[in-house]
């Protein structure tokens, strides 16, 4: 409990997490507004109000990675381990606090974009009528939560802000999308990529705006909740790897 409070103080006592949260909210709201304004009522569905969640998620991942890499940059990690020598407990507490903050930002952006769409298109069918539609909106916070854990884990492993952010951006923006281009096995591999699984959780069950258009749906061997569980498992595994390595090396 004590360490949770410590990490909370650290997170909120510098400005960059606030900036990241604000930018994540504004950028998703902005893109949603553009999308909704240029769509007709029929095209705006509950799922489509969340189409920009990836943008906010990437920014929150940067926030999570910075939460640890700035500690290495300014060597406050040494002061941290001096004040609390149990490194596993420290990093677990940091993961909990950062992931919780990310989850809250995720929920806020999800419901803010959903609310914005309702305001802009009162005539569209935007009621949260079934569990799938609830998952498509409220589930965004869960994705942010585990994405933050994954990003923190990468930050712990590489310790450098620039390196961590480059890896995260290149991976989420390029690698998972390019992998499908590998002949024969590409599509098979893509099914087991973590962000593909996370995306499946967020978007499964969204009807294509126009029948037969849009990207071909992947035939995934798991359901939406299976996808989330898989994404969570990978995120936690990366965090655990980071904790193991941190215990072995010098602070």
């Amino acid at each position: 409990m004590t360490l949770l409070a410590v990490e909370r103080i650290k997170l909120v006592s510098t400005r960059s997490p606030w900036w990241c949260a604000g930018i994540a909210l504004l950028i998703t709201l902005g893109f949603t507004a553009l999308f909704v304004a240029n769509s007709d009522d029929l095209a705006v569905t509950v799922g489509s109000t969340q189409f920009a969640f990836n943008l906010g998620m990437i920014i929150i991942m940067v926030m999570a990675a910075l939460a640890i890499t700035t500690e290495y940059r300014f060597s406050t990690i040494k002061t941290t381990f001096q004040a609390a020598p149990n490194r596993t407990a420290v990093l677990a507490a940091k993961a909990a606090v950062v992931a919780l903050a990310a989850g809250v930002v995720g929920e806020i952006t999800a419901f803010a974009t959903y609310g914005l769409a309702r305001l802009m298109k009162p005539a569209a069918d935007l009621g949260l009528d079934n569990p799938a539609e609830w998952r498509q909106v409220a589930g965004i916070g869960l994705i942010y939560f585990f994405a933050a854990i994954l990003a923190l884990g990468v930050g712990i492993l590489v310790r450098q802000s620039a390196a961590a952010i480059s890896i995260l951006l290149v991976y989420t923006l390029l690698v998972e999308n390019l992998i499908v281009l590998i002949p024969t096995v590409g599509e098979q591999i893509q099914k087991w990529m973590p962000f593909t699984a996370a995306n499946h959780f967020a978007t499964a069950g969204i009807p294509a705006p126009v029948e037969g258009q849009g990207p071909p749906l992947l035939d995934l061997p798991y359901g939406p909740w299976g996808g989330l569980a898989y994404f969570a498992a990978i995120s936690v595994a990366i965090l655990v790897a980071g904790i193991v390595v941190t215990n072995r090396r010098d602070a």
Partner: protein
Amino acid sequence: MIEARGLTKRYGDTLAVDDLTFAVQPGRVTGFLGPNGAGKSTTMRIVLGLDHPTAGEVLIAGKHYRELERPLHTVGALLDAKWVHPNRSARSHLRWMARANKLPYKRVDEVLELVGLASVAGKRAGGFSLGMAQRLGIAGALLGDPEVLLFDEPVNGLDPEGILWIRQFMQRLASEGRTVFVSSHLLSEMALTATDLLVIGRGRLISQTSTQDFVEQASEATVRVRSRELDKLGALMTERGWATRPDGADVLVVSGKTTDEVGELAGEAQIVLHELATQRGSLEEAFIQMTGHDVEFRSEIAELVGAPVAQGATP
């Protein structure tokens, strides 16, 4: 009380700390002296459990650092004043440290007052001068009212006022019965601050004694005699196998003998002395003498004492 046993740390090819065994006692300021790169900071990081030793161990109050429940209550340390997030206020910086060791926030304001930073407590630490950053670091070290304190080169880069403040502060902490372990690469600084000295070079222990003993052991006391009958006196001494060397026209420097012995010899021979005195080298000379035979250390010693030593000069 800090106890190190066979402490060794290797970074790749560099042997930073080489089989160090020492004890640092409470109630006094112990200086940790050695040239740059001698392994002082590495040793201190190992004491705090930040770096893992390749071999050996360190105990603080009988425990490994990692076993300390609320470590800031036992050990306070200032290894580097820059280990602060520049965009965090001094108060926030100390608050999370206090929180981690279940200390009340009231204590944060107390230590800020103690080091004279109360008026800038809400300011970003990144905007602090070196002296202020150093004071913030000391505030952090004092948070838990610890019995053991470690300072790594605390006066580096400070103005004379700041140096005096820190020096008096450390002596006060020691007089309160605490263990104060402070490193420096400056012998002159340590002579003014420390009662005990732990001297290392290239990761190896060179000596552990009181500052006074260190000087006495190392700097050979010589006797200076002035007389009009030096020729006669010198011959008598040479006869007895005493080591002498002339210093100017009518002065002789005798090594390895006391003023008593020289005075008695002169008295027996009825030689009038105009001056008879013990002379002792400075701390700097002591250090050179103690390690001077080790040619490897020559350039380091030169830097250590701030005096040029001819490269390749063999005694």
